């Protein structure tokens, strides 16, 4: 079974890098990244990753818009929001958009993979 491929879309390159490193090191996943909603959508549609970690607040196209575009394009790739928005109302709103889960920033790099697996019910 080939390693899972994860797409991280976040305008913060540092976060991208930390997340990539932690997932590679803890889960041995193949991690690709995009630093904006538009680039991320294109990358997602072209490389068909197993899951997308999507930042919510981004300057060009925010998380929910990106998600809507993906859904509109018929994508079924599970999406997990990676967000600094921690307020319950936001969480509730996001869940209604059809995301598989929400991971708060800052995340623990050692358990990030585990969290993703649990949300997507990967063994």
């Amino acid at each position: 079974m080939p390693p899972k491929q994860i797409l991280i879309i976040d305008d913060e390159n540092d976060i991208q890098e930390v997340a990539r490193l932690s997932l590679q090191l803890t889960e041995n996943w193949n991690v690709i990244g995009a630093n904006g909603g538009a680039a991320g959508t294109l990358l997602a549609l072209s490389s068909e990753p197993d899951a997308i970690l999507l930042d919510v607040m981004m300057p060009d196209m925010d998380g929910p818009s990106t998600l809507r575009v993906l859904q509109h394009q018929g994508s079924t790739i599970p999406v997990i929001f990676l967000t600094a928005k921690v307020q319950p109302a936001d969480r509730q709103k996001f869940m209604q958009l059809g995301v598989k889960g929400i991971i708060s920033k800052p995340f623990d790099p050692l358990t990030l993979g585990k969290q993703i697996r649990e949300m997507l019910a990967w063994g």
Partner: protein
Amino acid sequence: MTTKRQHSIRGKLTGIIMITSTTAVLLACLGFTVTGLLNFRKRLIVDISTVARLIAANSTAALAFNDREAGREVLSALQAKPSVIAAGIYNHRGELFAAYEPNHGITMPRSARPDGVYDLGDRIELFSPIRFGGKRIGTMYVSADNRDRAARVLQYEEIAGAIVVFSLLAAFLLAARLQRLISTPIVELARVATLVSKEKSFSVRATPTKLNDEVGNLVNAFNSMLAELEQRDQKLVLYQTVLETTVAERTAELTAANEELLIAKNAAEKAAATSAQLARESALILNNATDGILGIGLDNRPAFVNPSAVRILGMRMEDFDGRTIHEAIHHSHADGTTFPEEECANTMAMRGGAPIGMVDDTFWRGDGTSFPVEYSSTPMLDETGAHIGAVVVFRDVTDRRAIEKLKSEFVSTVSHELRTPLTSIRGALGLLSSGLLGSVAEKGQRMLEIAVANTDRLVRLINDILDLERIESGKVELSRGVVDAQTVVDQAREGLQAMADQENIRIVAEPFAGTLWGDSDRIIQMLTNLIGNAIKFSPPNTTVTLSGSAGPADFTFCVADEGRGVPHDKLTSIFQRFNQVDASDSRAKGGSGLGLAICQSIVTAHGGRIWAEKNEPAGTRVLFTIPLAARSYEVPAADSLPPDAIAKRSDPAVLVVEDDIDLARVMTATLQRLGLSTFHTASGNEAIRLCNEHEPRLLVLDLGLPDLDGFAVVHQLRQQPALRDVPLLVYSALDLGKADQSRLRLGPTEFLTKSRCSLADFEALVIRLFGTVTTRKDSQNAA
């Protein structure tokens, strides 16, 4: 003066005595003299008469014989009588016959005069008849010298003078002695009287006399009078004293009364001033209040509008133009859809005299624009307590909303913006310290761990600030429901057990029996916070004790530790933000300094309170209250149910409105067996109030109630947007017709006829109405 008076009375007395006695002596002397003179004359007349008769008798012969010589001889016998100075004999024709004239100075009358005695002053002449043989033959004349009388008068006068002198002397001496008898007491009286008048004293007395006469009586009477006067004087003094005392008392009373009057007057003036001041202040408040104030009559039309209301609404009193308040400023919802007055619960409540408080509503201005408003309506009562209208105080909260929004956005933006770099830092440090990127030297590893721990702390701090801001700004709506005290305590404890074990702290929890009305997540958050604090500040091998008790309206939770305790002066301030007992605590214990502030915000939002006190013998007790779920019905068999069958948090609550207590008991027990929490009332009005307060998830309603019937209850609940969709189970004694049923619908509605249904039917309908209900059996299976 006294002397003069003494002289006066004595002199007078002496004078009177002397004048009296002198007069008497003089009168006596006069009498004596007169009598002497008269007797002398009488004897002289008798004497010369005798002489005349002797001469006459001897001269008859001479006369008869006309012997003049013989006559002269007879007459010469008169030489023996020196007092006779002249004598004569007249014949029967009255011619002088013989004369005897020793002294030639005296002239004899030439003829005889009629018989009789003639007193000529210095002599007395006598003419008497000379008779012989019964026949008058001549007249005898004798003249006696009366000059002797003057000498005699002189002699008498000398005697009388001597008598007078002697008698005066005697009288003076006697008077001088005797007048004292009378004058001494009188002088004494005068002296005493003077003394009395001079010294104004009635205590002196005149020396009493032994005399039993008028003077003695006078002195006695005078003394009696003085005694009487003195007595009166004393009485007068007594009366005066009494009078003075009485006057003093009356004066004191009057003064006191006066003072009271003055106080009353001042109080009245003050009250009047206060009242005037109040009226002024009221007017000032009305005119200067920045809040709009509307006075509303029972017809719901404005009675007064203050300047701020005019400014905010852009409407004057006359612009209301006979419209009701609702029609004028509350006619539409915020989205612009029409809001009929009969659907406005607040208007209804206001008309019914109920107080209203709204923080989020919309008012419309005269120009057709709207603004967010916060208002309260208070019933207006007159002096007799009769409801005459309402006062609505409102505030345009546009600015405040904007500021709140700004603040909220700021906080959430800042927290987001802080989180982003923290995410990288935390991630990088986490990877470094994990050793996945290769091992680091021991000291370096330690530093990395410190960096990770403090990054986590910083994240917690940001979370807490955000949390606090949201609770305090009212952004977080408490999702209230019926909460079992034991459940929330168990959950909080569960989450902290690991921490307690690590710190070697024992957590002891007493049984918690109470059904609360609150947000279970928030209550758990609070308990977690407080128990976490207790653990953090307890030395190892001590106990943290959790206890709780239900009061009349509230349930009180208590978290007690045996730590070092909070100083008395900090028991209050620890609930302020970033106000820890010891500033180093936040570093050592990794707290944000906001935990207790968040607890206080949550408790306040629940309508409870939180406080800390000293624990005996050591440590601190933190207590907080959460309101009890109103009228929660005590189920008789509650103790037979295992704890997990009692409603879980966020489980729905059922309001049972039934006036038959036994039936209500059965229904309540059934519902609770289904895992539903219940509350109960027998009154329609109370049902409406409870619905407003608690928004039940299901309403079980009997139609026949003592006050409002079921139709009225449903009608009223339909007026309220939050309640018009509540599932309803109508429980009536009779079958209901279609028309009646349509009047009784709220949300999903089912009907039951009492006489024809079993408890199983009831249970089935409840389950149908409430798809999510889990039975006790299910929950046991799940466990």
